[in-house]
């Protein structure tokens, strides 16, 4: 196993994580906006994504396999499972962050004659950015870990080394997957935390 191979697989892993978190963000944003004004739907939706989170990841990958169109062995199934996991922290932090904006600030924004979308995008979202980014950071770091298991259903990435190493009782191969995965998680955590601080007012 050469360093270039480890690097290549690490990039594949990162791509898997990037796509999953990106798709989760794309789903979470409109979903969170929808939930802001609907308290009952908000409780049910957050409960549902919470339940998804409690399903062990290997089991979720297994459960998705036989489902037509979205299931089957390969990257697509892996990404769907990772998106489902990433949704909870992102949606929850978006909703909590926006609802947590100071009531006086929101009221004066409305009273100044800002429209609903101006209040949302110029006041609520910027003030909720630290909380929203914290959710994205949690989602990213945990997806980097969970994505190693995606190799079990043909998702590729660093998990490939881990599973190959376990099968052949070769510790070096296991570590070739585990160490880069841990490093990626640490780096992602640091970078996103830095961004969080930069974008806090």
């Amino acid at each position: 196993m050469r360093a270039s191979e480890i690097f290549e697989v690490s990039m594949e892993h990162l791509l898997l994580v990037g796509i999953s978190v990106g798709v989760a963000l794309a789903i979470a944003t409109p979903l969170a906006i929808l939930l802001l004004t609907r308290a009952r739907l908000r409780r049910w939706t957050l409960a549902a994504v919470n339940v998804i989170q409690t399903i062990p990841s290997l089991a979720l990958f297994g459960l998705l396999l036989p489902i037509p169109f979205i299931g089957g062995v390969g990257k697509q199934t892996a990404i769907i499972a990772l998106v489902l996991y990433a949704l909870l922290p992102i949606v929850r932090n978006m909703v909590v962050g926006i609802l947590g904006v100071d009531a006086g600030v929101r009221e004066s924004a409305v009273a100044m004659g800002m429209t609903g979308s101006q209040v949302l995008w110029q006041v609520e979202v910027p003030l909720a950015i630290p909380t929203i980014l914290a959710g994205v950071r949690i989602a990213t770091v945990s997806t980097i870990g969970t994505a190693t298991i995606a190799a079990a259903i043909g998702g590729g990435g660093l998990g490939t080394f881990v599973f190959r190493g376990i099968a052949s009782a070769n510790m070096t191969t296991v570590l070739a997957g585990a160490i880069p995965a841990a490093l990626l998680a640490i780096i992602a955590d640091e970078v996103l935390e830095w961004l969080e601080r930069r974008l806090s007012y």
Partner: protein
Amino acid sequence: MPPLIEFRQVAYQVSGRDILRGVNLTIEDHETLVLLGRSGSGKTTLLKMINRLLEPSQGTITFQGKALSDWDPIRLRRSIGYVIQDGGLFPHHTVEQNVGLVPRLENWAAEKTQARVKELLEAVGLAASTYASRYPRQLSGGEKQRVGIARALAADPVLLLLDEPFSALDPVTRFGMQKHFAELTKSFGKTAIFVTHDIREALMLGTRIAVLKDGQIELIVPPNEFSKAETPEAKAFLATLESGAHAGV
């Protein structure tokens, strides 16, 4: 010419409870009407109906002769300045951005907005060169309220609504702000509706004082006649002056 604002038999209920009852009120141009009352008397509710943050349960309110329900709320609010107790400044905007908010929403040219912001900061006693680039967290309580007032005045509104703007300030700062505010409304020729629970403030700033009790207007008098008021709530407020107790806290 119709009065600037007119309340006709306005009532407001929240889950069956009366917050305001049978309010009739007329506000003319260039006056400062103070709404004086205890916590829960309905004074803030009354104020928030004028810029449609709240809608009356019964009755009608007109603004410049036109029913509030016929006004586009966005247009209405941009012609009314609003100041609340903690200023409600946007913490992620600089002083300059905060004050220039409504002009920007109204698509003023950048240079015009900038000139207006500078003029207003000077008018409320803050040097633009020192304060324009600061964030609200870098300001004292009194400075925040000054910025809040400058922001409310920015797009030259016909009316100012102020909800206990000086209540959280220390007595010395508060007194300075009250004096300054009185000069400011006079020099800008603004109509203002000012909510307070402080009778000293009411007497100092009001051209008329309306006393609210349990959601109803008990009486409306000019400040120089307030001492002769015979209604119970007015007398209760007057008593706080005589005993030397501080009515403002």
